[in-house]
C-alpha cells in the first residue's frame, strides 16, 4: 500500500516535471526544428511538428552566404583567449590569497568582487572613447581585454575557493622535502587543482561566449562574435526564420553542451561560494 501510493506520486511528479521542463525547453527545441524547415514552412500558418520536408539548406546557406565562420572564430578567440589570459593572471593571485593569508586578504577579495558589480553603463563612455582613440573598436584584441577584465574577479574567486580546499599539509610536506615555491606550485598544487582550474576555464568561456553588452557596443563587422552577428538578423527587412534558426542553433550548440558539463561548477562560480 505504501509502495503503491509512492509509486503513484512518483508517476505524477514525473509527469509534472516532464511537462514543465518540456515547456521550458520548447523555444530551443522549436528553433532546432525550424532550422530544418524551408522558409515557406517556417512561416506557414499551420506549423507542423514533424511532418515537413527536412532540409539542410538553411545550414548550407548560412555557412556559404554569410561570414558565419569568421564570427564563430571571433567568438572562439574572444572567449577562449580571454579565459586563458585570465587564468594566467588569476592563478598567482588566488594562490597568494589562499596560501599566504593576511589580514588584508578578505578585504582584497571583497574589493575584487566589487569591481564585478560595476554596471557596464557606468564605464560605457570612457571605454568607448578610449577604444576609439587606441584603435581598438571592432578588434578582437579590444574585446579580449574587456572580457578578461570583467571576468577576472570570478576567476580569482573560483580558483580561491578551489585552492582553499587543498589541505595546507600537502604543501607543507613538499616544503619540508625542500621543494622551491615554483616546484610547489607546478608539481604539487596545479596537478591537485587541475579539475578546479578546468571548471574555472569552462565557466568563463561560457560567460564570455554569451556576453552581449560589450560585444554589441564595441564591435561592428570585423570582430563581431556570434552574439553580435545574430543580432544583425533582427533587421525588419528580409527576416528569414529558418536561416535565423540555423544560425542560432550553430551559435548556441557548443556552449549548451559545455554548459551541461559544468552545471555543478556554475553554482559555485556564479554565487561566489555563497551557496553550497
Amino acid at each position, binding site marked *: 500500500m505504501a509502495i503503491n501510493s509512492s509509486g503513484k506520486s512518483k508517476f505524477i511528479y514525473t509527469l509534472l516535471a516532464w511537462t514543465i521542463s518540456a515547456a521550458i525547453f520548447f523555444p530551443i527545441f*522549436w528553433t532546432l526544428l525550424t532550422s530544418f524547415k524551408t522558409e515557406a514552412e517556417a512561416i506557414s500558418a499551420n506549423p507542423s511538428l514533424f511532418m515537413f520536408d527536412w532540409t539542410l539548406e538553411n545550414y548550407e546557406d548560412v555557412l556559404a552566404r554569410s561570414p558565419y565562420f569568421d564570427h564563430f572564430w571571433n567568438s572562439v578567440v574572444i572567449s577562449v583567449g580571454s579565459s586563458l589570459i585570465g587564468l594566467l593572471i588569476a592563478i598567482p593571485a588566488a594562490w597568494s590569497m589562499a596560501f599566504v593569508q593576511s589580514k588584508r586578504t578578505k578585504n582584497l577579495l571583497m574589493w575584487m568582487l566589487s569591481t564585478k558589480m560595476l*554596471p557596464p553603463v557606468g564605464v560605457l563612455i570612457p571605454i568607448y572613447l578610449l577604444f576609439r582613440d587606441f584603435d581598438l573598436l571592432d578588434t578582437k584584441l579590444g574585446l579580449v581585454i574587456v572580457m578578461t577584465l570583467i571576468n*577576472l574577479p570570478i576567476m580569482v574567486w573560483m580558483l580561491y575557493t578551489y585552492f582553499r580546499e587543498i589541505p595546507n599539509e600537502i604543501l607543507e610536506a613538499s616544503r619540508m622535502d625542500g621543494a622551491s615555491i615554483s616546484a610547489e606550485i607546478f608539481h604539487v598544487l596545479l596537478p591537485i587543482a587541475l579539475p578546479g582550474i578546468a571548471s574555472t576555464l569552462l565557466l568563463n568561456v561560457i560567460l564570455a561566449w554569451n556576453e552581449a553588452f560589450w560585444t554589441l557596443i564595441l564591435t561592428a563587422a570585423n570582430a563581431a562574435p556570434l552574439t553580435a552577428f545574430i543580432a544583425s538578423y533582427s533587421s525588419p527587412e528580409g527576416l528569414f526564420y529558418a536561416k535565423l534558426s540555423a544560425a542560432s542553433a550553430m551559435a548556441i550548440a557548443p556552449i549548451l553542451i559545455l554548459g551541461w558539463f559544468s552545471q555543478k561548477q556554475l*553554482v559555485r562560480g556564479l554565487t561566489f561560494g555563497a551557496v553550497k
Partner: protein
Amino acid sequence: MATTHSRTLAQIMLFPSVVLLLAWMIVPLCMTLYFSFLDYNLLSPGTEEFIGFLNYEFFLTDPAFFASFFNTLLLVGGVLLITICGGIGLAILLDQAIWGRNYVRIMVLAPFFVMPTVSALVWKNMLMNPVNGLFAHFATLIGVDPVDFFAQVPLLSIIIIVSWQWLPFAALILLTAIQSLDREQLEAADLDGAGPFSKFFYIVLPHLSRAVTAVILIETIFLLSIFAEILVTTSGGPGYESTNITYLIYTQSLLQFDVGGGSAGGIIAVIIANIVAIFLMRLIGKNLEG
C-alpha cells in the same frame, strides 16, 4: 624566514590582478565622473565646457528618466518574482524521485546557456510575432485575437523573455540548497504528522532563505544591466515604454552623442548598483568567515 620570502612572493603574484582591476575600475569611473560635469557632445569635440551639476539636473528631471527608472524597477521586480517563485517550485519538483531526472534537469537548465541575442530573437520572431508566431497561431486556433506582444505589452514581453533565461539559474541554485537540507528533520516532521504545507513553510522555506537572498541579489546586479534583449526586440519603444536605465544611457550617449548627460546617467546607475552590491557583499562576506 620562509614566510617573509613567501609573503613578498605572494605580493608580487597579486600585483597584476590588483593593478588591472584597479585600472579597470578607477580610470573609466573617474572619466565618467569628469564627463558628467561637462557640456560634451561627441560630434563637436573641443567645445566642452564645465557646467557643474546641470547634466544631473537635466537627467534626473527628464521624463525619460522617470519612465526608464520605473521600467527598470518593473523589469527587475517582475523577473525576480517569476524566477524566485518558479525556481522554488522547480527545485522542489526536481528534488523528488522522478524518472529521467537527469534529462529533466538538462532541459530546465538549457535556457541559461542561450546567448541573450538568440533568445530575444527567437522569442520575438518565432513565438511572439503577431502574424506568424506560434502564440498567434494558438490564439487563432482557440478563436482569440492574437496579441501583438511588442506593441501592446512591450515591457511584459521583455520580462517574459528575461525570466525564461534566468529561471534555470534560480532553479539550479535553489535545488542545490534544497539538496543540502537535513532529511532527518523532514522525517521527524513526518512522524509528528506535519502536512506538506507546514513542512514547506516551517522547514524548507527557512532553509532556503539564504539561497533566495543570494539569488535575489545576484540576479538584481545582472538584471539592472539588461541591454541586448531590449536592443534586439523593441529598441526601447514604443516611446519609452520598454526603455530601462541602461538602455536610456546607451541611447543618450552613443545615439544622441550627449556624453555629458550619458555620463551623469552612468554615475546614477553606478550609485543604484552600489546600493544593491553592498547587501550582496555583506552576504558573501559573512560566508567567508566560515
